[in-house]
């Protein structure tokens, strides 16, 4: 893709490819000693504006989620963001006054995105909802990259019986329709905390990553530099950790962006069904589910969390696709 881009000169192309992909050879090692700013520009400089916008949105989401969390856990709600659980039309114990809010209000200076059915501030709830999506996506990606990445790289490198055993276990998990298996697993737990939800989704993320990692590991294990390492008598374990895994990793991280988009949709669906993190914690999914009951009165309360969810998924897809194209990576498992 990028190789055909006339704006991109040859030097940029090779430099960028080396940043992201397989087969770092002697030339690039020398080049890596050049200033960091130049390298960053080489990799991100020709990002299409849509991808840049997407990246900015993702940064905003991460910032919002952390800000909301800090607000509650460190500053006790003192930062300038409203309390997501406060019913602004009721008695406020903190100030000793009755609130002046109204349920299902349109946007105003006091409530930027209006209020929900029980007069809670929608903007605060959307920002707090980002935390759940962020944590679930991060834990799923960590599980996937660490466990799935290791298993996949290992079996792609050693082959043989280990591969048969591990891959058939993976195939059994993939034999279930993903959401059905997730529902069955989630129903086991009496208390559905953020930890439980993240761990279950994280566990279920492993198989797909294993497949992607295995496909790449297979290709890399057949490369010359692995054969060379074998020839000079390097221990298999060292080859795995020094040659195979570092080369599988970039592909896997690009895949993680796209997988994170999927995970956020899955968590949203679970919340929507009322089977994710319990109330009053707001999530985009449960906000949508609550607001849809009043859709005949006001649709805007459905719009805000939907927009946040969709934009995040769209952005992750955009950035992930760009990384994959940039590395000319093919995720063989899909």
């Amino acid at each position, binding site marked *: 893709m990028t190789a055909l881009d006339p704006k991109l000169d040859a030097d940029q192309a090779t430099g960028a490819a080396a940043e992201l992909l397989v087969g770092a050879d002697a030339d690039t090692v020398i080049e890596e000693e050049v200033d960091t700013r130049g390298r960053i520009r080489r990799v991100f400089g020709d990002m299409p504006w849509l991808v840049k916008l997407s990246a900015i949105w993702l940064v905003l989401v991460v910032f919002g989620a952390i800000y909301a969390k800090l607000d509650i856990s460190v500053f006790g709600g003192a930062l300038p963001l409203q309390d997501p659980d406060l019913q602004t039309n009721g008695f406020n114990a903190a100030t000793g006054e009755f609130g002046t809010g109204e349920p299902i209000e349109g946007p105003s200076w006091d409530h930027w995105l209006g209020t929900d059915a029980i007069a809670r501030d929608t903007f605060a709830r959307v920002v707090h909802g980002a935390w759940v999506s962020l944590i679930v996506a991060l834990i799923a990606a960590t599980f996937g990259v660490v466990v799935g990445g290791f298993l996949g790289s290992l079996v792609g490198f050693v082959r043989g019986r280990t591969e048969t055993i591990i891959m058939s276990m993976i*195939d*059994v998990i993939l*034999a*279930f*329709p*993903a*959401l*059905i*298996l997730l*529902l*069955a*697993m*989630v*129903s*086991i737990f*009496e208390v559905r905390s953020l930890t439980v939800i993240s761990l279950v989704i994280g566990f279920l993320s492993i198989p797909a990553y294993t497949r992607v990692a295995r496909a790449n590991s297979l290709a890399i294990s057949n490369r010359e530099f692995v054969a060379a390492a074998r020839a000079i008598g390097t221990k298999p374990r060292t080859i795995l950790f020094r040659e195979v895994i570092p080369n599988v990793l970039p592909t896997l991280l690009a895949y993680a962006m796209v997988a994170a*988009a999927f995970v956020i*949709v899955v968590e*949203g*669906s679970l919340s*929507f*069904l*009322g*089977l994710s993190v319990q109330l009053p914690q707001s999530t985009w999914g449960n906000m*949508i589910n609550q607001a*849809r009951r009043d*859709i*005949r009165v006001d*649709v805007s309360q*459905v719009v805000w969390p*939907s927009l946040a*969810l*969709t934009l995040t*998924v*769209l952005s992750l*897809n*955009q950035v992930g696709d760009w990384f994959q194209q940039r590395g000319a990576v093919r995720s063989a498992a899909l």
Partner: protein
Amino acid sequence: MLAIIGIRVLRLVATIFVVTFLTFSMTSLLPGDPAVAILGQDGIQNPELLAEVRAELNLDKNFFHRYGLWLGDALTGDLGESYINRGQEVSDVIADRVPVTAQLAVMAIVIAVVLAVPIGILGAYRQGRWEDKASSAGVQVALSVPNFITGIFLIWLFSVQLGWLPASNWNRVSNKGLWENLKTAILPATALASTQMAIFSRLIRSDMIATLKENYVLAARAKGLSDRFILARHALRPSSLSLATIIGINFGALLGGTVIIETLFAIPGMGFRLINAIFQRDIQVIQGITVFVAVVYVVINTLVDLFYTVLDPRIRRS
């Protein structure tokens, strides 16, 4: 050829066996004693009665024994009786609800293919021009909007604003006739189709871009055949094979989607029943529906695999 089918069928049986075992062990982990759930207060006060009911439900036997008994029954089509709604056979529940879910899934696939084929062809034929860019952008968005959001906005537009179609419920063909049935089915099926449509049209576009570079397309063009004819008759044919495969692969996602969409539209299908069972902790129903759906999914995937092997001889060798 027969050997290949034999191996596939053996693998199918093995997978189904493991899938049932996993589902059974998972649902056995559910908290709470079903016997207590059935008897309520009586069970806690009367330990003898409790023991009797436990024996009746085989709960006094060990795990593997229970699994064996359950699997034996399941093979004869008996998936047990709901603990919560006494007297309700799980297999009856499934038989009652399968037609609804199946209709939704089939309609969704049909809608997705009908929309995806022209969009994909347009994208490939006008590759790089504004038509391609616009449709690709649309496809990207459709791919990123979760189906329950699509569903809500379809309800908002067609039921709340326009008042053309009902926002929820389901009319069975047997009760109200086909027309009333379709009126309740079209919105949920469209919501379910939106993501699939995006996936299919992306595939058709990229497939067709490759096909259009083939020599036989050039030959057809040289013969003076019209673009329309070439697109429809020559270029679409190879894509149909990969389309069939991707429909099979995505069938699992579609089944998951029906759970959400049925809940959103209050449709009495299997997915909605599964969600209710989860909230009621109705172990037998959760177990039965999960196993049923997983087996259907595994069987369909095997069929798609076989179909592919039969159609494309190159795959047989690898």
